[in-house]
């Protein structure tokens, strides 16, 4: 018996080796290197890095750019999070009805999730083109003069938010839908017998019981918001006038365009700290509103 167990353990380890090796080589070592590099001025081509202490971090917090990037990210979060939460919840509630047409709609809505970010962004870039784009042409039919979505600094981030919601809606509504489906049917029957109306059922049963799922969605979407990247890179590249510069875009630009790997690594560490802090805060706050059965 003991031998069998050891053998099983051996095979388990054996099968884990490729993924653990991959994790060590492509994630763990780069992460540790980034931490080290963030204290250096490594510029890739100039040979061995020099340690410069906290200079990169001081430069980051002293730069105008960092605060612009944070403001941009906050702008994204304040529009994207409520937008995605409300719209995916509404859709999930709609899915929850057992109509044939809804099932087909569910599939359609999932297509953007399966689309690659790059392909989607390229198509949206053309749709949102100010003068010749499809969206503004459609708006013109109903007499609205559409803005320059991606080239006007007032609209660029809003456009990014719209496209991000388009992309993520299918995924998050499905997740919430899953949460809705796991609610015990008998609770609804009991509520109906007690004479509760549809709104009361939603407020007192559905919403509280779906909060664990909403919490998951909130944590994931906030992390995603800080890691915003491909849509920005393709659609605006941080412009116009830096209105869509965000952390990962800056990390990429400093690392691979300016070859300031030390500074880019420091930005990555700052991003890590921000994400961990925000997630911890959410973990603490969840006690106040997440309801576990």
């Amino acid at each position, binding site marked *: 018996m003991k031998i069998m167990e050891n053998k099983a353990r051996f095979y388990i380890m054996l099968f884990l080796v490729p993924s653990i090796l991959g994790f060590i080589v492509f994630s763990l070592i780069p992460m540790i290197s980034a931490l080290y590099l963030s204290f250096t001025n490594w510029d890739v081509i100039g040979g061995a890095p020099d340690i410069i202490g906290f200079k990169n971090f001081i430069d980051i917090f002293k730069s105008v750019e960092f605060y612009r990037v944070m403001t941009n990210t906050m702008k994204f979060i304040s529009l994207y999070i409520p937008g995605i939460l409300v719209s995916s919840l509404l859709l999930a509630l709609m899915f929850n009805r057992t109509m044939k047409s809804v099932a087909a709609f569910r599939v359609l809505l999932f297509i953007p999730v399966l689309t690659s970010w790059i392909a989607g962004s390229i198509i949206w*870039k053309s749709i949102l083109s100010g003068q010749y784009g499809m969206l503004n042409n459609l708006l013109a039919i109903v007499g609205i003069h559409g803005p320059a979505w991606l080239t006007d600094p007032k609209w660029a981030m809003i456009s990014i938010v719209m496209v991000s919601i388009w992309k993520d809606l299918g995924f998050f509504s499905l997740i919430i839908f899953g949460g809705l489906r796991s609610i015990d049917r008998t609770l609804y029957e009991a509520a109906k017998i007690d004479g509760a109306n549809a709104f009361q059922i939603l407020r007192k049963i559905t919403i509280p019981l779906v909060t664990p799922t909403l919490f998951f969605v909130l944590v994931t979407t906030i992390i995603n918001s800080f890691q915003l990247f491909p849509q920005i890179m393709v659609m605006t590249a941080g412009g116009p006038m830096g209105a869509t510069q965000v952390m990962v875009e800056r990390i990429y*630009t400093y690392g691979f365009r300016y070859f300031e790997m030390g500074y880019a690594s420091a930005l990555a560490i700052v991003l890590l700290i921000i994400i961990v802090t925000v997630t911890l805060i959410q973990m603490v706050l969840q006690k106040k509103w997440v309801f576990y059965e």
Partner: protein
Amino acid sequence: MKKLLAVLTVVLFLAACTPAKAKEVTIKFLNYSSNGGQEATLTAMVDAFEVANPLIKVEVETLGYADYFTQLATRVAGGQAPDVFELNIENFRAYADKGAIAELDLSKFDISKIQPTTLKAFQIGTKQYGLPTKFSNVVLIYNKDLFDQAGVAYPTSSWTWAEELAAAQKIRALGTDIYGVFRPIQTWEFYKTVVQNGGSMMNADQSAFTLNSAQNVEALEIMIARINTTNVTPTTEQLGGMGDWDLFKSGRLGMIVTGIWAFNDFATNCDFAWDIAVEPGIKNHATHFFSDAVVVSKDSKVIAAATAFAAFLSGSPEAALLRANANWDLPVALTDEVIAAFKAVVPPANKQAVFDSLNYLVMPPSLEKFGAVADDLQIYLSKAIAGELTAKEALDQAQALISGKY
């Protein structure tokens, strides 16, 4: 045992023979500029070099421009730098300053044919760190048909921005979606235009930025008025994502100030008559200069052979002629034969303007971090175009930020 002895004898014999032949060396050459159409020309150059230097073999590797500098930096960092590689003028400074490339000993090579501005562009102090292979400049390209329709005389080399604007306004009047002239407003255009107005981005010894000088502010105001006041240049919105070259090729643009590398494309894709002139200046002539060079890695084990290959690509009449015949920018070795071959390809008929422009070449400030400076300045230039800031406010703020940061 006998067999083994026989084998050993053969091996010893072969080993004894090899040193009799001089040693052949292989050099690795990494480039981007042959990518997308000139690969065969480069192969022809390499073949010519190998015929002249039978003991040197060249292994060519070609990458797309988009990946090139990331790949190159990674290889240099990993100690895998190719012996000879290509650098453009924007990246040259960084590689030289970081000591990644070798100073070239050119005593054995003929570099007398190389156009002097291009040679100087790849020197640090008096030391030659790179050898230019090809270069290009910028000229005014104009649509003759639109000039005829508007009844305006064709541009000449004595034109300034004033004549250019007058012509542009007449052409603009031809139709609501016909524009007079296109000059983009961005850092790369700005450093040239301010020189045309007697200004500059940095002081003479490049120790300080002078972004908000009176001449610079005035130049930026003139640039912006072309878009926002006279609208002879389309706004980003009017352009609607269309490229400036495409606008010209569509026949809706009177003049475009752009690089001579547009010639091939325009010759194929314009169904109207066009020609070129020296780019007009505001007070002085000044025009862009771009160049690609080949450099030798300081870690190369075969520096002599690598230098020989670099010198061949740069200064040899054979390579220059191959380049000229292939219409692959301007070769730096401007022999009479090369000039004749270059002029033979028309349109444009007035190719002399390309050579006349060589008298007015300006270069961007030679800064290791010019790319980052350019991006920072761009934000303020865009704010000035959008009318959020006046030209003066934009340049004042840019000056404060950039001189504090770099």
